[in-house]
């Protein structure tokens, strides 16, 4: 029983890493209608930027804040000067552009900082506490709490604020939104900027645990995409729940089903997606997209 609880708790901790990235993907999707495959790569770049400022001797928190601000600008600029050219065309093209961007950003990180793992300092102490017989690091706990706070803020942003309404309107139909005076270009930049900000937070939260490398979030991106599909593209809460479930599930399966083990556990969330999408095509929490012609 002790092992079981420990596995669940560890799973929730890894799940919160996926959740952080998944939230950024949901944000871009809600604000622009696209899926940004470069989200993970951009988050790693943000973590490297924070790392640079830490190396320059700045306090960690200040370095993170600087990185978050720069990430907002970077995200907005990527939208303005790269994605803008593809937004009016086929969405598939734009998605492929984001895959190219992932390769590019990862390459830039590698050129500037190399492939060696760099130690990234943690915001939270490394002590652990005992909950129900399981050992939980304060860092994992604090990360999970931060993710939940971000999730709630995002949900409120989209459903309760004028900015959120405007972002969703632009994602839904940019041409029509402009007829109501919404500055479409600026709102798309804000959407990308906010998502990059969120990615930056995710990056610096998980960098201490994963250690900083250009491909740090590649695996996490796969899980995050699984969480996004599973939870529903339009639901921040859904993707956090799905990400946690995936984290827990892969841990349990790896240990309790020897046939799958640690080698095949990455396939588990996708088998799950397969089953769930057959039953609920809009994802667990997503809203069905209705198109009437």
């Amino acid at each position, binding site marked *: 029983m002790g092992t079981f609880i420990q596995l669940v708790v560890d799973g929730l901790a890894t799940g919160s890493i996926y959740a952080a990235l998944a939230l950024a993907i949901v944000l871009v999707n809600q604000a622009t209608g696209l899926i940004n495959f470069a989200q993970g790569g951009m988050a790693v770049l943000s973590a490297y930027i924070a790392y640079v400022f830490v190396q320059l001797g700045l306090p960690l928190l200040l370095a993170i804040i600087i990185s978050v601000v720069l990430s907002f600008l970077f995200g907005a600029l990527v939208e303005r000067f790269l994605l803008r050219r593809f937004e009016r065309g086929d969405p598939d093209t734009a998605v492929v552009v984001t895959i190219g961007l992932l390769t590019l950003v990862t390459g830039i990180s590698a050129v500037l900082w190399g492939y060696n793992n760099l130690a990234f300092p943690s915001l939270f102490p490394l002590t652990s506490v005992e909950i129900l017989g399981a050992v939980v690091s304060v860092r994992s706990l604090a990360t999970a709490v931060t993710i939940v706070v971000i999730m709630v803020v995002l949900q409120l942003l989209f459903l309760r604020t004028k900015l959120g309404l405007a972002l969703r*309107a632009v994602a*839904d139909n940019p041409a029509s*939104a402009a*007829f*109501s*005076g919404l500055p479409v270009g600026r709102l798309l930049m804000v959407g990308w900027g906010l998502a990059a900000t969120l990615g930056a937070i995710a990056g610096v939260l998980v960098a201490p645990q994963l250690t900083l490398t250009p491909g740090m979030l590649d695996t996490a991106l796969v899980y995050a995409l699984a969480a996004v599909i599973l939870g529903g593209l339009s639901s921040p809460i859904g993707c956090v729940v799905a990400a946690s479930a995936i984290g827990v599930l892969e841990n349990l399966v790896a240990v309790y089903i020897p046939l799958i083990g640690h080698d095949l556990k990455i396939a588990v969330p996708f088998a799950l997606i397969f089953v769930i999408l057959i039953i609920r095509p809009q994802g667990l929490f997503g809203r069905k997209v209705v198109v*009437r012609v």
Partner: protein
Amino acid sequence: MTLLELTVVTASYGPLQVLDGVSLSVPEGGSVGILGANGAGKTTTLRAISGTVRTGGRIRFDGRDIRGLRPDQVAALGIAHVPEGRGTLGQLSVRENLLVGAYLRKDRKAVAGDIDYCLDLFPQLQDRVGSRAAALSGGEQQMLAVGRAFMAKPKLLLLDEASLGLAPSTAKAVYEAIRRLRLESGIAMLVVEQNANLAFSLVDTATVLETGRNVLTGSSAELKGMDEIRRAYLGG
């Protein structure tokens, strides 16, 4: 007082010139129709005004030149465009669509009152305020599109084929509501409509386009029943 004035406006989609010198004017609070066969340039004329097509010539609105402005800048000056095919925000609820319409307004209390007004104008929407726009019927979507345009409290409404694809009785109900809206709000209107009876029920004057030019302009009373009108609608 002239609110909107187009002087020899041209417009093209790539190499294809669609408007070849359209001139018209809409007085403050007035209602003007644009008539003509398919492909005559009616929709493009509206798009030229709202900034969604490349244009030449002169477009003045409320004392300033608006040619070359972006659609959101045109909207901010007080022009609300209800495009052909409605252009509602499908994944947003009816209420959210109306709120998007009021995006540029700062008077939050009045906005709530205007939403109630929209629901009074289009009672069919009352039970649907929480539904997503994509789930509405064609007629309800058209009502929502008009309601959303009204929420911006514009000086001028551009209305494109509000009857398109609707059952005759629904189209009639939509036009009756728009006529009431015009009487009660005093918003000026520029109306593109294929159905002559519906058009004349709403406009004071009209201009007839043929292959991107005006061929005839007159009051509703003058134009009703004229041969040119019949020809224009039949495309002859």
